[in-house]
């Protein structure tokens, strides 16, 4: 049975969301930077109003009287860029961290930023918009805007990596921890989602959700009726009479909703104790931020819209390891997440009723080896076949037989030597046997360059891109991050605060630098950072 389906039905019958997690599975910075805004209808590159900042009660407000005028638009975005730079400058302190290198056995000391910035936006569409803003800001001549673009590009690129908390959306924060009784697509509406989780006293979730839908949307697309009735007269007044007061007032009023809702989502998740592995995953974000800063200082930041060659394969490896690690870590951190595996029958819970620590079997080499036996009484029949692998922490075991209320298990790893027998659970211990074992170490064994079968036999026009050094995981952190340390150009001495040389790009260019980026409308962010240093940053 699927616990997810059950929880959705439960939420439906109670007309109120039910918890899907008992731990916070996203890192929440003590001081995140929030951003909510609108662009002109149909023109994502023309921001009308953006509310941003780290302080709930004193947000900054950016408005553009004529967003289609590049001068006005970039003048306004210049303010945002400077404020972003100020915020990011808080995260420059480093500390020495001991980490594994090479094959993972040697240790080395490297400097890592003690904390990293965090951007939180109301919804997926705004997260996508942030990437888009970064994409065209970083191609500008203005050094402040270009630097902001590079930072936003890095922030947006982390969004593709499971387990990263650099760029969070309020809707994801909530759907990761609660289940509603509405359709998953309806969960994409921040107001509706909050209404399900915390409906105002006296209203049920459906009514609260309907009320929320009547409120201004969380952006970045605005409400057409508001466009016609409020925005248009305000823009005309600003343009014709130079009076922006009405525009500012309208923008502040309409963006107050998404701003409040995003903070409300943060408050809700903050009430949950953080999962044990969250800090470990955040450390991977800190390393990535450290490397990004080094590249900014060295002037080597670069983005390619689509990865190719070895970085593409490395990215896949990164995604696969992170996906598996996140699933495993969340289940081990949180009983309510583990309950999903109990519900499907992949995990089993019960009480140890009998042990035989002296049990031995004869292995393939003819030697007699210790393989203790455990009997676990379960409340429901365990319906997986004999031979299924299960783990209790580091103790691995295999199911030998199962009846309606008892599972017989043979320990196969973690406690199969006499000194380690103490690690076995005692009789009468309550145990949850999980389908996840200890983290396995799979180094990324990719070659430095593509071998001939996967390289075109036709002559190649452009040189091979350099290694992508931004991809690191909490799993293979040691190896890849060390690669990063050796391949990333060292920060130039005394170059602190230097911003990258802007690229010479014609003024009208708002499309991504790489022609390939416009090729696929399904490309997620259109900006994956790579070490590709072409383009003369």
């Amino acid at each position, binding site marked *: *049975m*699927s616990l997810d389906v059950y929880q959705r039905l439960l939420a439906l019958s109670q007309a109120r969301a039910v918890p899907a997690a008992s731990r916070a599975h996203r890192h929440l910075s003590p001081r995140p930077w929030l951003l909510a805004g609108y662009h002109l209808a149909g023109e994502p590159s023309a921001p009308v109003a953006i509310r941003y900042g780290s302080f709930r009660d004193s947000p900054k407000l950016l408005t553009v009287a004529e967003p289609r005028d590049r001068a006005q638009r970039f003048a306004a975005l210049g303010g945002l860029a400077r404020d972003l730079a100020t915020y990011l400058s808080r995260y420059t302190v480093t500390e020495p961290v001991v980490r594994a290198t090479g094959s993972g056995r040697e240790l080395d000391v490297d400097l890592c930023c003690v904390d990293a910035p965090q951007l939180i936006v109301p919804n997926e569409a705004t997260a996508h918009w942030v990437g888009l803003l970064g994409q065209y800001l970083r191609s500008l001549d203005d050094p402040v805007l270009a630097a902001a673009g590079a930072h936003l590009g890095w922030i947006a690129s982390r969004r*593709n990596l*499971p387990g990263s908390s650099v760029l969070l959306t309020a809707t994801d924060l909530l759907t990761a921890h609660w289940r509603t009784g509405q359709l998953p697509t309806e969960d994409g509406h921040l107001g509706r989602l909050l209404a399900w989780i915390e409906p105002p006293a006296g209203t049920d979730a459906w009514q609260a959700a309907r009320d929320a839908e009547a409120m201004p949307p969380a952006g970045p697309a605005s409400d057409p009726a508001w466009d016609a009735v409020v925005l248009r007269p305000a823009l005309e007044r600003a343009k014709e009479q130079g009076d922006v007061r009405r525009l500012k007032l309208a923008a502040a009023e309409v963006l107050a909703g998404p701003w409040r809702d995003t903070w409300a989502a943060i408050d809700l998740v903050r009430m949950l104790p953080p999962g044990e592995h969250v800090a470990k995953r955040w450390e991977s974000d800190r390393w990535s931020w450290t490397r990004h800063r080094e590249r900014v200082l060295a002037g080597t930041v670069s983005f390619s819209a*689509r*990865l*190719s*060659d*070895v970085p*593409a*394969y490395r*990215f*896949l*490896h990164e*995604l*696969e390891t*992170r*996906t*598996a690690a996140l699933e495993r870590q969340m289940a081990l951190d949180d009983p309510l997440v583990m309950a999903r595996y109990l519900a*499907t*029958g*992949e995990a089993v819970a019960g009480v140890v009723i009998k042990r035989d620590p002296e049990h031995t079997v004869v292995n*393939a080499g003819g030697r007699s080896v210790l393989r203790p036996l455990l009997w676990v009484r379960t409340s429901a029949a365990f*319906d*997986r*076949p*004999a031979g*299924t692998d299960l783990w209790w922490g580091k103790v691995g075991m295999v199911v030998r037989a199962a009846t309606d209320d008892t599972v017989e298990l043979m320990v196969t790893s973690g406690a199969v030597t006499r000194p380690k027998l103490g690690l076995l659970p005692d009789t009468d211990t309550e145990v949850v046997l999980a389908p996840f074992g200890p983290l396995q170490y799979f180094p990324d*064994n*990719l*070659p430095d360059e*593509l*071998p*001939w*079968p*996967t*390289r*075109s*036999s036709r002559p190649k026009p452009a040189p091979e891109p350099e290694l992508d050094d931004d991809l690191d995981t909490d799993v293979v952190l040691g190896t890849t991050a060390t690669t990063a340390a050796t391949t990333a150009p060292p920060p130039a001495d005394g170059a602190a605060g230097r911003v990258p040389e802007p690229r010479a790009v014609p003024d009208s260019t708002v499309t991504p630098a790489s022609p*390939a980026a416009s*090729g*696929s409308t*399904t*490309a*997620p*962010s*259109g900006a*994956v950072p790579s070490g590709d240093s072409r383009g003369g940053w």
Partner: protein
Amino acid sequence: MTSAGARHEAAIEEVWNRVRGTDRAVVVDSPPGAGKSTLVRELAKRLVAVGEHVPIVVQTNDQADDLVIALAGAGLSTGRLHGQEWTPPAGWPRQKVRTGTKLGELGGCDVIVGTAAKWAYVKADERTWPLGVIDEAYQMSAAALVRVGHLFDRLLLVGDPGQLAPFTVADEHSVRSLATWPLDTAAGTLLRNHPDTPVIPLPVSWRLAPHTAPVISDAFYTRAFTAGAAPSDRRLELASLAHPALAHAAEHGWALLELPAAHVPRTDPALVATIADLAHQLVTADVSTVDPSGPRPLSRADVAVGVVHRDQKAHVEAALQRRGVTGVTVDTANRLQGRQYEVVLAWHPLSGRRDASAFHLEAGRLCVLASRHRQACVVISRAGVDEQLHAYPAAEPVWLGTDPPQVDGWEANRAFLERLAPHRIPAR
């Protein structure tokens, strides 16, 4: 020699000439049971005879074990490169075989067999080979090829283009935005990068029976093939069986056993019970399988249950254990690739579903499930798959930088179902 045999021999000779020629890579397209394993064994023998050392890359440990047993049986001194947790299967040869987790432990072996995942840890500065053989090259991903390609100066890739495409646990959407497509098949990547590579098709399936081969060829392959066996060669004799689906399949090669239409969870208990009952009947009743080598009783190892998801596998296995049936293979399509059984009970990927997702529509999945048998295949499904297919016309996006699949999954599913319509048996 029959004409099928002659065509097969000609294809083998062409492969051998190409391997001894100057092409940097050679691809052999092999439909199910077209003698791919025999070809690999034969070529390994010939290469060793002319003094070459032959490294062979396979995709799963089961495939590696099967191949090593076959090669050792052919008298070749064979090394099995394996991981830490590998244990030798039953019937592991004592002669001619060495095993080891490191290349250094396999000194003196003429042929070395290992999975792609294991070969990826061999360093090119340790040793390289003039020619490498990749088995199941359509099951292997480009990402795996990248990790082993530098070990070999030339490559022979052998595989079945009707296999499952490589897959990932990661969100495929993120990967699809890459200019290089790491989940392309190894053979596909090689052909894309080296378009002059010769592709030699094997024209005859020796596994599939004459009455089941045309269905597979028509629904799932762009290069048509025929069965090598004559209609009178094979027979499944059921002396005392009760179930009409098994009786029908014994006679016609196919049966489509349909349970009443319903939208059900993935681990449909009724389907699990039906499959377990059928398997139980097959292994307990008096069944013999007849081919030109003579009749013999159907053993448990001759029967396989093919499923779609791992939880279905777990439920069917547990149901079989409750009925006291052991030794019958139950596995997902992914892991049944390259294997062969006398009778296969296949869980239809679209059974009981509300939608038809790309995963469940994939041509390779159904093709693998429907082409593992020598005698008969019983497809078990909820009714209504036809309506479901027509409610979900193919809507897969076309991705830039990748080749569209040769066979469309939706159309393959529809064609297969149409060919099975005369074999439809409603469940009692």
